[in-house]
């Protein structure tokens, strides 16, 4: 689905992303984890057209998209959300999502109708006429997701879509994301909420200081010593291992 080859970018003297290559498999949920400042959002920016790589290339469904503008990449089937949610604040939830729907639907009435459908899909059906600025953080995260979804993407980049949600809200979002995969959308997510990564991700990459340090199945990656040192910490690693064992026995 998405192929990044030897991507690199520097900001001044800082090598934010260095020689990163990965392939996101079609139809699966994949995760990108790593410490803060490791280059995760930078990588998303490179892949979605908001940043131009100094070196390397990006291909979507076999087509070279390196250097294309974000809106062009969106048209080709890749949509993204932002780590810090950016709703169209003074517009309603319906109008927000309709902007996404309009990518494929020129008619206003049909775009608004499609917006309503997508809102139901992510659980915002009851809030359609509310102003985006009046939503709680959980609602805004769903709105980010809904907007991107309305563009009918083949690949969806989710940037920390679960940050700021309490455990119950996370539990509610997990089936929504799984539902996207089941509907045929490939999902590539940046996440710190490890419970979600373990439950959702079918493949994980770990990036630290701009470089990939590990990749593989969630269980493999979370027991990798380098990953534990750089990112998970021993407490979390132990907790995850315990959960693994209990679900394995269950």
């Amino acid at each position: 689905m998405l192929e990044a080859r030897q991507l690199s970018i520097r900001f001044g003297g800082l090598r934010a992303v260095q020689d990163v290559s990965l392939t996101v498999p079609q139809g699966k949920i994949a995760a990108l984890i790593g410490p803060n400042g490791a280059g995760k959002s930078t990588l998303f920016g490179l892949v979605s057209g908001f940043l131009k790589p100094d070196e390397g290339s990006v291909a979507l469904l076999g087509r070279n998209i390196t250097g294309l503008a974000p809106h062009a990449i969106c048209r080709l089937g890749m949509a993204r959300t932002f780590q810090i949610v950016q709703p169209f604040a003074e517009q309603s939830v319906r109008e927000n999502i309709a902007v996404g729907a309009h990518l494929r639907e020129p008619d206003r009435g049909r775009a608004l109708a499609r917006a309503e459908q997508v809102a139901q899909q992510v659980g915002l059906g009851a809030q359609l006429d509310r102003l985006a600025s009046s939503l709680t953080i959980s609602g805004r995260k769903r709105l980010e997701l809904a907007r991107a979804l309305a563009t009918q993407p083949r690949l969806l980049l989710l940037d920390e879509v679960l940050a700021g949600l309490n455990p119950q809200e996370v539990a509610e979002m997990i089936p929504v994301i799984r539902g996207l995969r089941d509907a045929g959308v490939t999902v590539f997510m940046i996440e710190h909420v490890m419970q979600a990564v373990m439950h959702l991700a079918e493949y994980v990459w770990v990036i630290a200081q701009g470089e990939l340090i590990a990749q593989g199945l969630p269980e493999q990656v979370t027991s990798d010593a380098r990953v534990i040192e750089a990112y998970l910490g021993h407490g979390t690693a132990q907790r995850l291992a315990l959960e693994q064992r209990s679900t394995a026995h269950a």
Partner: protein
Amino acid sequence: MERAHEARGRVAGMRQLALIAAFAVAVALLPLFVSSGFLLNLVIMTLYAALLGQAWNILGGFGGQFSFGHAVFFGTGAYAMAVLQTKFGLNAWLALPAALALGAAVGVLVGALSFRYGLKGSYFALVTLAFAEVFRILANNFQFTGAGVGIQIPLRDSAAEMQFASKAGFLYAMLALVTASLLVAWWLKRSRYGAWLQAVRDNEDSAAALGVNVFRVKLGAIAISGALMAAGGAFYLQYFRYIDPHIAYGPAISVEALLAAIVGGMGTVFGPLLGAAVLHVLGEATRGMLEHVPGVNLIVYGVLLVVIIMFLPRGIMGLFGKRA
């Protein structure tokens, strides 16, 4: 549920169209009941301010790009009309589309340069101001535009030359332009392009991530805005029959445009019209009461602008709750 919302949307849209039609009809009937030159002039100047405001509103209110130099389009329209008539002998009605096209072209020029380099907010505002100044200086220095003396078009008093013998004629012309501008705003509220434009206003990055070609959308807005503003300039020339660099490209016009839009309500269909009406009525009323104080209407405009921004940031339309 889907049907209900769609139906509600259509009804609201029809209601606004009906309102626009009612307004147009009401003003069109005015000359039948009012013969006072003073009152007719007041209505004409209010409509004129409404047109300027709506032109600014397209780019500023709907597009979120605040311009301090909208005079650059106004003056282009006025000078185009003047030069085409006096130097090329073109009929005013034929010169009008050229003036509009030129206004749009200048819009594309200013927009392409500004937006290409990512100018936003205060930077964009100052650059538009600079453009207006540059054009003013150019107009002031070329004989082609009459240099400092400006251009005066001869009195024709004939509808065929777009100079109407009675004020009513000018009223209808102005009304047509204002109605057209209201329809443009109405269209922005319920079209895909309008949704894209308002998305760009509210958050450019999000809009880009949703497939909106931000550069092209902004360029479209400034072209439409430029054309409407140029129409205002063309009308000014036909009504007053004289234009000079200061009138055409000076800051007064730029301020007048944004004033009506901000006071009335940015990003709304009727905002600039309401703003123009309130400003002019208040201006005339205070001028009547305080005749001996020169420029009192300007003081009123200033105070009103401050009061609106402090207490009614959504403008007068904000009093009506919903964003119309």
